[in-house]
């Protein structure tokens, strides 16, 4: 090896740091910066974690399940854990920072799962991709809320849809299907959410929403009804099939209409009743089904059939509610036996109670409590006799032994209203009894009799005699009418018309005369005369005591007279009457009144003259005399009883008189009279009578002219003298009477001897009865004569 100079350690100058450091280091530095930048940015962009509690987390996978808002992923599930007591599943979702501020208190989360309903399939995409969490919140940032309660079902309004939230309550018979549409005029405008059974278990309520802008259709006057199913009706207009749409036919659904105007806008959460059909919905507008309801229970001892849901509940005859549910109750602990009792739920409408203002359920309960304490009880009564339907009636029971009771407020689920014995008439049994009675009636026999009666009547009515009757009647009536006409003619004559005037004149004269008499104390004298007469009457009364016997005899006579052929007589009289009418119808008879009038005028003149010539004085004197005479007569009557006895005897004799013969004779006489009247001569009579009257008038005139009044005065004087004489005779009468009495007593004693054997008294009584009858006959005869004055012409 060659010698080499020693190596000089040569150390190059140390290069600067930048010269030594390789440029390549820039790359890792940049990488580091980028990495750090990315890390920082991803950390800064990371949103908060929202924790959502679900009932279960079926299908939710951490790190995979997304949170979506309007179908855009805005978060990812990071954790799936439990709440503290394992009560719920807590899903932690990493939110996007951009939406975190919007996830406020009102946000809703629900898990979207595949769902197959009658309306279709929803969430189908989740079958393959797995479920996702749907978040729903409004567009107003309200501050991030880290903990939320997830709902099991999708809310009605998602994705920012707006509308009116309502609560629908199903009326009895109406159905409410979950998730069914709300249809208006065939257009789906809303949706029904999940249905829940109300607390008392009687009705179904469901949340529903009507989306904007259709929510303006909803007002307080809106009525909902069940549009599912179909209705078929057959009427005069033909067959009719109604259903809203095929969809609602299958899936159910409700529709609505604002049936009256004047509704007010409603708030969210307003309760509406869903009626079974349109008709009941429309009619409900006036029945005020809405408003607060008071539910009561009532337990009836007797389980009567016929009560049904919707039966009316009445208080004092006014419908205040209805029956909403019927249940049987068996409670041995409470009632002591195991009988089935009828538990009825009553839905009371407080507004029907007639209290002032708008009262609520509590006030209504208080009111009913008071009523119950006053004795009001619920009972079942017949609502309809025909159908046998029942209703619940709250009525005041007025029984003294009524147990005090009140509403049991502690009863569950509703307060218990006290009840009493039902008042149910068994209509069917009563009706059956009535029908049985009717059935038992002998209708056939009755009808037979009726038919027989009808036959007889028809036979009688059909007889020719009966048919002739009207003709005869008509003839008779014609006669009567003719007579009446004649009479009217007579009366209608001027003379008759003038008669009253005349009579009035006479009456005037008489009145003057009477006043004249008054002036001369005629009344007093007359009174005295009457006194005397009274005495005489007293005497006569005494006399009359013997009269019965007389009457008996007369009765016998009368009996005979009764046997007379009165009928024949009457017939003849009728004939006579006819003739008389003919006579009256004659001109002469018509002229008679005139003559009478003239005569009356004469009398009038005479009377006036008489007055002028102091006739009253004479009359007064005469009356005095008459009084004296009456007094005398009174006195003289003292002997009359005996005389009566005698008369009795005479009457007895009279009994033997052949009255029959007399009647026949009389009849014959009347016949003759009739014939006479029928003759022309008789017809001439009125004329003659008129002449006679004229003559009488002439005579009267003469009398007046020839001082007749003076003669009358003289006559009165004579009469007075005669009266005086009579008085004198009467004064002698007592003696005569005493003589007569003695004679009669002798005769009486003689008769007494015969009394027992011959029964003279009885005979006398019989005689008197006969006389009575005769008197009656005579009386009727007299009446007949009265009616036919022409008999007077014959002096009878």
């Amino acid at each position, binding site marked *: 090896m060659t010698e*080499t100079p020693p*190596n000089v350690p*040569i150390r190059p100058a140390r290069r600067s740091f930048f010269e*030594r450091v*390789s440029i*390549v280091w820039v*790359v*890792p530095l940049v*990488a580091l910066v980028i*990495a750090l930048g990315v890390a920082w940015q991803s950390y800064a962009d990371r949103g908060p974690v929202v924790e959502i509690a679900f009932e279960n987390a079926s299908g939710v996978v951490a790190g995979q399940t997304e949170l979506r808002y309007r179908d855009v992923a805005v978060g990812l599930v990071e954790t799936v854990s439990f709440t503290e007591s394992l009560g719920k599943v807590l899903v932690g979702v990493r939110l996007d920072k951009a939406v975190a501020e919007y996830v406020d208190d009102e946000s809703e989360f629900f898990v979207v799962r595949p769902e197959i309903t009658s309306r279709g399939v929803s969430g189908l995409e989740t079958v393959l991709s797995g479920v996702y969490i749907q978040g729903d919140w409004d567009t107003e940032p309200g501050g991030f809320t880290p903990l939320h309660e997830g709902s099991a079902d999708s809310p009605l309004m998602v994705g920012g849809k707006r509308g009116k939230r309502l609560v629908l309550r199903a009326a009895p018979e109406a159905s409410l299907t979950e998730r069914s549409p709300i249809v208006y005029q065939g257009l789906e405008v809303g949706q029904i959410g999940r249905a829940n059974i109300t607390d008392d278990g009687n009705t179904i309520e469901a949340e529903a929403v009507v989306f904007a802008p259709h929510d303006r259709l909803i007002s307080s006057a809106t009525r909902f009804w069940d549009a599912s199913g179909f209705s078929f009706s057959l009427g005069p207009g033909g067959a009719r099939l109604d259903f809203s749409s095929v969809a609602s036919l299958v899936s159910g659904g409700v529709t609505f209409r604002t049936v009256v105007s004047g509704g007010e806008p409603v708030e969210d959460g307003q309760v509406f009743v869903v009626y079974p059909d349109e008709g009941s919905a429309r009619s409900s507008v006036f029945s005020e089904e809405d408003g607060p309801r008071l539910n009561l229970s009532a337990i009836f001892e007797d389980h009567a059939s016929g009560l049904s849901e919707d039966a009316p509940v009445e208080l004092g005859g006014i419908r205040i509610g209805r029956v909403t549910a019927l249940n049987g109750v068996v409670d041995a602990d409470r009632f002591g036996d195991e009988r089935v009792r009828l538990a009825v739920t009553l839905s009371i409408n407080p507004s029907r109670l007639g209290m002032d203002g708008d009262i609520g359920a509590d006030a209504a309960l208080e009111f009913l409590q008071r009523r119950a304490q006053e004795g009001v009880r619920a009972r079942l009564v017949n609502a309809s006799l025909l159908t046998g339907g029942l209703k619940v009636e709250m009525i005041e029971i007025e029984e003294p032994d009524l147990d005090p009771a009140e509403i049991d407020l502690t009863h569950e689920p509703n307060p218990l209203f006290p009840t009493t014995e039902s008042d149910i008439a068994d209509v069917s049994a009563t009706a059956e009894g009535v029908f049985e009675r009717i059935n038992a009636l002998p209708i056939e026999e009755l009808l037979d009799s009726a038919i027989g009666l009808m036959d007889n009547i028809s036979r009688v009515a059909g007889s020719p005699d009966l048919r002739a009757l009207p003709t005869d009647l008509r003839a008779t009536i014609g006669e009567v009418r003719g007579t009446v006409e004649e009479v009217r003619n007579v009366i209608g004559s001027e003379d008759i018309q003038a008669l009253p005037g005349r009579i009035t004149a006479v009456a005037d004269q008489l009145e003057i005369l009477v006043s004249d008499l008054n002036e001369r104390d005629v009344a007093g004298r007359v009174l005295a005369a009457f006194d005397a007469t009274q005495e005489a009457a007293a005497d006569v009364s005494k006399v009359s005591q013997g009269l019965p016997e007389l009457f008996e005899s007369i009765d016998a006579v009368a009996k005979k007279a009764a046997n007379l052929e009165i009928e024949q007589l009457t017939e003849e009289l009728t004939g006579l009457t006819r003739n008389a009418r003919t006579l009256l119808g004659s001109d002469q008879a018509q002229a008679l009144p005139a003559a009478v009038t003239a005569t009356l005028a004469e009398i009038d003149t005479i009377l006036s003259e008489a007055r002028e010539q102091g006739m009253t004085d004479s009359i007064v004197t005469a009356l005095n005399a008459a009084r004296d005479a009456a007094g005398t007569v009174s006195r003289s009557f003292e002997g009359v009883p005996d005389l009566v006895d005698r008369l009795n005897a005479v009457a007895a004799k009279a009994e033997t008189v052949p009255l029959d013969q007399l009647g026949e004779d009389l009849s014959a006489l009347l016949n003759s009279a009739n014939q006479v009247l029928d003759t022309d001569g008789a017809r001439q009579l009125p004329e003659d009578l008129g002449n006679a009257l004229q003559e009488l008038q002439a005579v009267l005139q003469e009398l007046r002219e020839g001082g007749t009044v003076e003669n009358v005065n003289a006559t009165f004087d004579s009469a007075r003298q005669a009266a005086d004489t009579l008085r004198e005779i009467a004064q002698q009468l007592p003696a005569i009477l005493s003589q007569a009495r003695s004679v009669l007593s002798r005769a009486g004693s003689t008769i007494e001897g015969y009394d027992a054997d011959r029964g003279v008294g009885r005979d006398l009584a019989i005689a008197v009865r006969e006389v009575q009858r005769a008197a009656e006959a005579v009386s009727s005869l007299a009446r007949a004569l009265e009616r036919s004055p022409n008999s007077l012409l014959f002096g009878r």
Partner: protein
Amino acid sequence: MEIPGNVTTARQMGLVACTRCTKVWPGETERCGRCGHRMQSRDPGSLQRAWAWWVVGLICYIPANTYPMLSTRTLVSKSEDTIVGGAVELAHHGSYGIAIVILVASVLIPIGKFAVIAALAIGVRRGTRMSQLRRHQLYEVVEYIGRWSMIDVFVVAILSSLVQLGALASIAPGKASLFFALSVIFTMLSAQSFDSRMIWDRDSEPTPQPLQPQEVHA
């Protein structure tokens, strides 16, 4: 080849070899007389570059494992798997072979590369008990096998291009594939940057020596 314990390097003999055409020139030669390549006995920035690429590669390797490698979307599902996750998934389904291949190609090899490069670089500066020959062999293996690490990226690229059935199914490369590819590239660069001649420098302080006619190894 059995290499005796004391190997004399060209540097010790005052020579310098051209790294392109391997002709050996005297130590002061600036440029290779044959190919004109710039002559340099040792690259003073080699370790720095190696370390720099190594760091970048490691940085890229982290997201390559955390982000999904492959995004598979079919009609029914969408799955994104990381490298390790996918391998585990496969192993769960019983495909242990494929799982091992993936694990080796995508996890074992890259991590081994990082470890080997780091070890070599440290060994150059601090010295090591491992023989120079062994270290050189390691270096050659690393450089050889490094490109195979891209097998995962190739699979992703091929699948993505092949499986595009529209809505039915599609496979897209995940973020990790890009980072993984970058990681592989950076580790390869790191390996290349490493001047393997330094393995043979026994001394930590390389001392320039006059040219001596000695056995020249390289």
